[in-house]
């Protein structure tokens, strides 16, 4: 017969364990890092040296610039590679990078780039115009590499025929000499230069790729960028070090960068506070972490807020009743209390009543008819649509899985029910969400968003609202909005060479979209960056926000004192 401990003794043990747990919790209540641990040496001038430590909560997929499209891969690829053009950190304008200069032909369809002299990859292989074009053709060849960005280059003459293997080379790319590359487009396109600043177009040493294979190249890349790969420990860490052969001898300022991979947000924040990481951003902060940090005066000077050029809202399927009625769509948009949603996120987002977020050329803070919270008007719009007592039935709102989307979904549910629109939240994994919301006549409402590929209004409005993107499957025009007037305006704007006139056309296009409400625009995020006191980010790219080219560390470190505030 088995014996068991007497009940009172068991209770005694439980009480002791509970007391011990309570004591641990009490001890844990004092935050050990109410201030930063270290300050810099006090230098105000840029200094070279040091290794920056940053972290991401995702794993790295690839280091091949032709394949990198997710945030982390792009962030690292941008440090290993340069492109012909880049964005000026101060003005956001396109400026030469690998190209020494560039010019647009009189036909507005021919672009000529002249490479800097003596460019070499980090292994010493020279980069001339022919090497560039071979690399560019590799990116456009689907049998060589599955590049997700070839559509940005489809207007290059002969690019499609080459991609379909009907031609051995892209006829629209020529190299008159070792430093000159000429691109001819089939029609004028003012966004072509933006595409030439995207990492897909970064040159890679094709002979090396052919020798080692695509898979190995994606693990051990060679580029022409400011850093080179030192090691990649799968799922754990990537270490970059300065490229001694980099064309710009004054950059980078850091000796290296360490990227911790797959480090969950709560760990990132703990490590940052303990000074095991040098930089954190809003992705590393839970709401509790954010509130804790902002409540500590010593940390506040090191928190920086910048607008993130992105838009979030509800995509409304204009093909599915009752949302094919513009009044219903407007009612939905006027029912959303954007301020309350911003408040629920501690103002880490800003209400947005139009399509273009602040920071994007064409942004108009006073766009006529901007979507705003007005439940009376929402009810009036519903009445005008013939629904005096609200919409009949329940309508599914699709969302991707995740805590933030769940919060927005619940707030939307509450707001819409107040005007008589009842919605049911339908959560799906990202692939399923994409598959369903990008399919015609499948999903009526979806909570979605758009982050810019490049700072041009066409990247938002063309992609999301041009009817050519309202395809049967994989439609980027998720609202399946079709408007021939808008299409014609966008087609004209795309080729308009005069910048001011072009922006005015895009603003006119925005007004059409705001009026017809194929989306209920909700908010634009604020980008929150937190750095240790000794980290100086310098100016960084408005597009590639993880850019560390100008970052420098004020070494040696010393214990933090309050006066060290910036």
């Amino acid at each position, binding site marked *: 017969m088995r014996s068991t401990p007497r009940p009172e003794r068991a209770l*005694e043990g439980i009480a002791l364990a509970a007391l011990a747990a309570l004591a641990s919790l009490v001890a844990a209540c004092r935050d050990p890092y109410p201030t930063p641990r270290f300050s810099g040496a006090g230098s105000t001038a840029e200094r070279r040296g040091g290794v920056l430590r940053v972290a991401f909560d995702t794993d790295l997929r690839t280091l091949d610039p032709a394949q990198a499209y997710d945030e982390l891969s792009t962030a690292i690829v941008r440090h290993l590679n340069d492109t012909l053009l880049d964005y000026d950190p101060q003005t956001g304008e396109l400026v030469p990078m690998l190209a020494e200069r560039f010019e647009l032909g009189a036909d507005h369809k021919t672009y000529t780039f002249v490479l800097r002299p003596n460019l070499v990859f980090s292994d010493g292989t020279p980069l001339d115009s022919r090497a560039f074009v071979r690399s560019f053709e590799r990116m456009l060849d689907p049998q060589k590499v599955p590049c*997700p960005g070839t559509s940005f280059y*489809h207007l290059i003459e002969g690019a499609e025929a080459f991609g379909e293997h009907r031609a051995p080379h892209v006829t629209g790319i020529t190299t008159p000499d070792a430093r000159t590359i000429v691109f001819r487009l089939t029609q004028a396109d003012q966004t072509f230069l933006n595409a030439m600043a995207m990492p897909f177009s970064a040159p890679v040493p094709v002979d090396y790729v052919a020798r080692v294979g695509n898979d190995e190249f994606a693990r051990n890349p060679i580029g022409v960028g400011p850093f080179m790969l030192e090691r990649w420990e799968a799922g754990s860490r990537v270490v970059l070090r300065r490229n001694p052969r980099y064309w710009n001898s004054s950059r980078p300022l850091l000796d290296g960068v360490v990227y911790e991979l797959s480090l969950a947000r709560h760990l990132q924040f*703990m490590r940052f506070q303990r000074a095991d990481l040098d930089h954190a951003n809003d992705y590393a902060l839970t709401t509790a972490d954010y509130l804790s940090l902002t409540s500590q005066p010593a940390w506040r000077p090191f928190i920086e807020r910048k607008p993130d050029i992105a838009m979030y809202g509800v995509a409304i399927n204009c093909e599915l009743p009752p949302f094919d009625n513009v009044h219903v769509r407007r009612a939905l948009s006027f029912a959303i209390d954007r301020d309350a949603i911003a408040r629920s996120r501690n103002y880490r987002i800003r209400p947005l009543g139009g399509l273009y977020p602040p920071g994007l050329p064409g942004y108009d803070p006073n766009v006529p008819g901007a979507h705003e919270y007005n439940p009376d008007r929402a009810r009036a719009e519903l009445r005008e649509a013939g629904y005096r007592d609200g919409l009949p039935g329940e309508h599914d709102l699709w969302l991707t899985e995740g805590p933030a989307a769940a919060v927005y979904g619940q707030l939307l549910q509450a707001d819409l029910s107040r005007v008589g629109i009842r919605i049911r939240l339908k959560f799906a994994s990202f692939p399923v969400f994409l598959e369903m919301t990008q399919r015609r006549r499948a999903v009526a409402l979806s909570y979605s968003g758009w982050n810019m590929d490049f700072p041009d209004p066409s990247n938002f409005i063309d992609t999301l609202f041009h009817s050519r993107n309202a395809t049967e499957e994989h439609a980027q025009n998720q609202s399946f909005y079709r408007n021939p007037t808008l299409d014609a305006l966008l087609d004209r704007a795309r080729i308009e060479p005069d910048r001011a006139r072009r922006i005015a056309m895009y603003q006119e296009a925005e007004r059409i979209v705001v009026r017809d409400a194929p989306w209920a625009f909700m908010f634009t995020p604020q980008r929150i960056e937190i750095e240790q006191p000794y980290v100086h980010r310098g100016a960084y790219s408005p597009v590639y926000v993880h850019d560390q080219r100008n970052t420098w560390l004020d070494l040696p470190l010393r214990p933090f004192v309050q006066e060290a505030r910036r």
Partner: protein
Amino acid sequence: MTSFILRRVLAALAIIWAVSTLTFVVTLKLGDPVATILGPRANARDRENVRRYYGLDQPTYVQYARYMGRLVKGDLGVSYRYRRPVSQLIGERFPRTMLLAVMSISFEVIVGVALGALAAARKGTRTDSAIMAGAFVTMSLPTFITGKVFLLVLAYYLGLFPIGGYGVTWLDHIYHAILPALAISLLSTAAYARLARNELVEILQAEYIRTARAKGLSEGVIVLKHALRNALLPIVTSLGLSFGALFTGAIVTESIFAWPGVGRLAFDSVSGLDVPVIVGCVIFGSFGIQLGNLLSDVAYAFLDPRIRHG
């Protein structure tokens, strides 16, 4: 004995086949993998190219036949997400998972059995009560709670351990593995302690133990040499199962501690719909469980002749 092992191996293979088929079918319903491969902004032509590249344009039965054909040859396919062979991905993460498994199993067996033996030897005393109550409380705590408490208190507040991650050198890896290994092993340690105690209490009342006592042997020798040996039989069985389960990595623990093992790979592959990796991890896991079961069956058969003759 040979036929016994052969029977078990055949059964294990059948189970692995069934599990891999079931996983393949389930993943077909999870969404379009092309979205995982190319992201949301690729055009139709790129999507078609990728579909062809991975054979996703073929009918399901063709995809299945190709998949099983490769599997028989030991090829688990290529990850959509990383575009590398799945066996490579699992292979480079497996040693990390094994490190965690070995450390946690060592901890749970050594500490669990020691505590159980102590409780049995002091049956009915405060020590017995405290150990059993502690085991009871510990078994009620899920890993995602204990793991985070360990991180918060032992790593963040007290600074005794690193805050998650894997480290750089081998010693560093071991140092980084201590907290996750503790978190994994806590529950099993308590279970082993209870199991060992109950077995020992029963054995300590047996006739041959009474004889040993009558011969004047010390209590320590009686517990360690005569009783514990027999009490280990059910523990060996549980050990095999624990080992198998840890083969795939402890998904929750690896995620909490950012430990880059097979569990974390499985977690990421599910959220990213990386079908070949999902199926690869499931097959690898079921292989581990079958191996663990087989080892414990064989060990049991060796330890207890009634099993192999039965």
